[in-house]
């Protein structure tokens, strides 16, 4: 499929999200679309997939101008997008979900649903989804797999992937990339939206960079990484490893902990967490990290074991007891589980104020709000609604709501979907907290982030948890193999 975008403009209020973007994409090409958060990548792709309408400009598909007024229009033309947030029906089984989409698409054959074709695609991509399982039970990674398989099944010719590797394991990523290369070889056009340079380097034959809504450059493979970084940020960024503040005081001691879930069983976890220490959780999405973090926050009851904190055993207490002791969990789904849509930033700060009060002290809350917005560099005002913020700013808001000082922060994919700059910034804030003896346990799909920011790493593999590994001098290749289930002691 030959795609030509001509002078695309899109405004959101006063924000010029896409400014005169022109771009041609040849069939069989894997195009990398790079840019930091808020550069306008997602907007451009949403326009191309019919989810939002362009304000100005033309879209030519195979040389013909097309009006894309809805995702159904786009799908009819063979354009499918894999979104960051899965578009599916959590209350249905996978089979039902697929049937709905099958009926919605005009491209479908009139005869009965072609399950064999779908199974072939699954096999091709190395996915293993149980068609009679419930969509709601899938992890984010599995839901992305479902979406990808579904789009291919509906006969999509142009595949747009928006940050597809967030939340999936290194192995799954490998499978995905080989599948994408195969698809490109079959003449499908692929647009790969990402801010991860290495992925673009590995996968794409051409890359274009957006910055502040403008297309500011394009490069052919092989790419020079520093060159791309300069294009994306206007300057070079390097991570600097700061000194760790870890002590030998035990913050939390986990003994013989067993966590059972209908999907996964985690058995016999033992480790000591030191005050001021950062522990990273590595592993494929859905290997038990979420259950583990939730168990340590009292959000999910472990079936047996001890969680010793200070002089107490917190086993069996509810999450409010944990919160009272300064143990907080920050979920990865910010809008769904962390923030309240329809409430302003100021209202969020009032709610998270730990002081027990009956009446709202609007003068004080005003002051707090202004302070936090400044300190956490949130692009918004006190009367801004949380859902109006961009992803990075929502994450900053979420972190700024955490009580200070805290004893232990349990962060589920804290930098998921954020660009390097936001990631660095968030970690600088978290590091400050470690200096004040706050311990952190976080999960991440990014090996660099894990080895870089964690003092020790726990590797998860289908419910098994490794001994804590010191991240200093840890061989990343070995880590990758362990995540994939190799090199485990018998």
């Amino acid at each position: 499929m030959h795609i030509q975008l001509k002078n695309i403009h899109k405004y959101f209020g006063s924000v010029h999200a896409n400014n005169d973007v022109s771009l041609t994409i040849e069939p069989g090409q894997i195009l990398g679309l790079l840019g930091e958060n808020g550069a306008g990548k997602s907007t451009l792709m949403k326009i191309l997939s019919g989810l939002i309408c362009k304000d100005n400009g033309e879209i030519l598909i195979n040389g013909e101008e097309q009006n894309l007024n809805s995702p159904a229009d786009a799908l009819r033309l063979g354009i499918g997008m894999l979104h960051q947030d899965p578009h599916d029906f959590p209350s249905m089984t996978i089979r039902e979900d697929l049937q709905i989409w099958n009926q919605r698409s005009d491209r479908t054959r009139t005869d009965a649903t072609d399950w064999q074709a779908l199974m072939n695609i699954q096999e091709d991509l190395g996915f293993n989804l149980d068609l009679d399982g419930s969509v709601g039970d899938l992890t984010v990674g599995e839901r992305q797999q479902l979406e990808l398989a579904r789009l291919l099944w509906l006969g999509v010719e142009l595949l747009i992937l928006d940050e597809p590797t967030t939340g999936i394991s290194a192995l799954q990523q490998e499978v995905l990339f080989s599948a994408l290369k195969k698809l490109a070889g079959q003449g499908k056009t692929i647009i790969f939206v990402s801010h991860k340079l290495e992925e673009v380097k590995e996968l794409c034959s051409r890359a274009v960079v957006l910055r502040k809504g403008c297309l500011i450059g394009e490069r052919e493979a092989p790419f020079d990484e520093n060159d791309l970084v300069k294009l994306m940020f206007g300057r070079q960024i390097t991570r600097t490893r700061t000194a760790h503040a870890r002590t030998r005081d035990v913050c939390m001691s986990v003994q013989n902990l067993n966590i059972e879930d209908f999907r996964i069983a985690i058995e016999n976890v033992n480790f000591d967490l030191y005050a001021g220490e950062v522990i990273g959780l590595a592993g494929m999405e859905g290997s038990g990290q979420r259950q583990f973090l939730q168990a340590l926050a009292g959000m999910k009851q472990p079936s047996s074991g001890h969680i010793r904190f200070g002089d107490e055993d917190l086993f069996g207490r509810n999450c409010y007891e944990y919160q009272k002791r300064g143990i907080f969990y920050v979920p990865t789904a910010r809008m769904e589980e962390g923030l309240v849509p329809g409430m302003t930033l100021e209202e969020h700060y009032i709610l998270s104020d730990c002081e027990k009060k009956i009446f709202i002290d609007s003068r004080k809350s005003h002051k707090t709000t202004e302070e936090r917005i400044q300190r956490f560099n949130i692009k918004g005002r006190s009367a801004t609604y949380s859902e109006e913020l961009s992803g990075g700013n929502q994450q900053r808001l979420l972190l700024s709501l955490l009580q200070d000082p805290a004893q232990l922060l349990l962060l589920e994919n804290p930098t998921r979907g954020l660009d390097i700059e936001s990631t660095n910034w968030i970690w600088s804030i978290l590091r400050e907290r470690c200096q004040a003896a706050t311990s952190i346990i976080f999960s991440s799909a990014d090996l660099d982030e894990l080895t870089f920011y964690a003092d020790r790493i726990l590797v998860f593999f289908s419910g098994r948890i490794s001994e804590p590994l010191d991240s200093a001098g840890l061989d990343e290749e070995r880590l990758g193999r362990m995540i994939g289930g190799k090199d485990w002691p018998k």
Partner: protein
Amino acid sequence: MRKNRGFINFLFRISGILAALLFTALVLVIAKANPWEAFGNILMGAVSTPIKIADSFVAWVPLILATCGLVITFTTGLWNIGIEGQISLGAIMTTWALRLLQDSGLPPVVIILAGILAGMAGGIIWALLAGVLKFYGGVSEIFAGLGLNFIATALTLWLIFGPWKRAGVASMSGTEPFDMSIWLPTIPGYRLSVWSLALAVASVLIVYFLLQHTVIGLRLKAVGKNYKAAIQMGISPSKYMLLAFVLCGLFAGLTGAVQVLGVYHRLIPSISSGYGFLGLLVAMLVDYQIVWAVPVALLFAALNIGGIQLPIMMKIDSTLSGVMQSALVLFFMLMDGVRKKMLKKEEDLSDE
């Protein structure tokens, strides 16, 4: 530009009301009645004499009290369909307290206060039942409320025809009326009691203050908008949802108490008079903003009172008021939807 938009919003509201009137007129034409005459009768029935105006306020009191409670449950994300039963239980408990104390020789003020408190307790118990069924039994509050409404109706009828039946013969007209000394005092010559009016106004102020200026109100709102996030903020959703039920039950029970003490002076079979369901309409119409519920509830109350004239004057059933009220809600919401859609388009255009 902004002023212009305010005017457009106003136009949309008015057009919603006009559409509702047109629709009602159409219903009247189909029923072979003169719409002008009917509207005129309703208007005159509600405002032509001071007594009728006062009667509109008599209807306003239970309606706004029920709406007060419902605004709280809606804010917390709960559909408290069980409000009718909660009003009935309030009335039953008030009647029980009055029957118990009427011959005790206590001062009437004490008896009346005990009646009000008993009524509130009745409403709270019935609301808590719905809440407990939701949190411990996994029953949706909508179905729990619906079931409890039927039970409350059955209970009322059983009491009227059984243990509390009138001396001689039980009848649909209700239990034996109480002695005048324990009625809520009314303005001489009118059915309206200043006391019940004061209770209603105080309730509105309390709910407004609770939801706008207290941390508890904000927490209720947070639970209603995203209970998962509320958990992260240390707010227990089940605790605050139960609290919302309790508060709503309190106002519903008060509604029942006022109907017994100030209006019917006995327990009658349809003691809630549908004010609970009408309150649901009012709450939805004002988008759960208690301030706006005050005039809207008054309008609905006036329609109820004005409708009483219709069977006498035109031989049309008085339920026409109900048709008008529902049409108002439906068309108002429809126009609001259209307005929002147009506003969005306009914004998209002006952005260019």
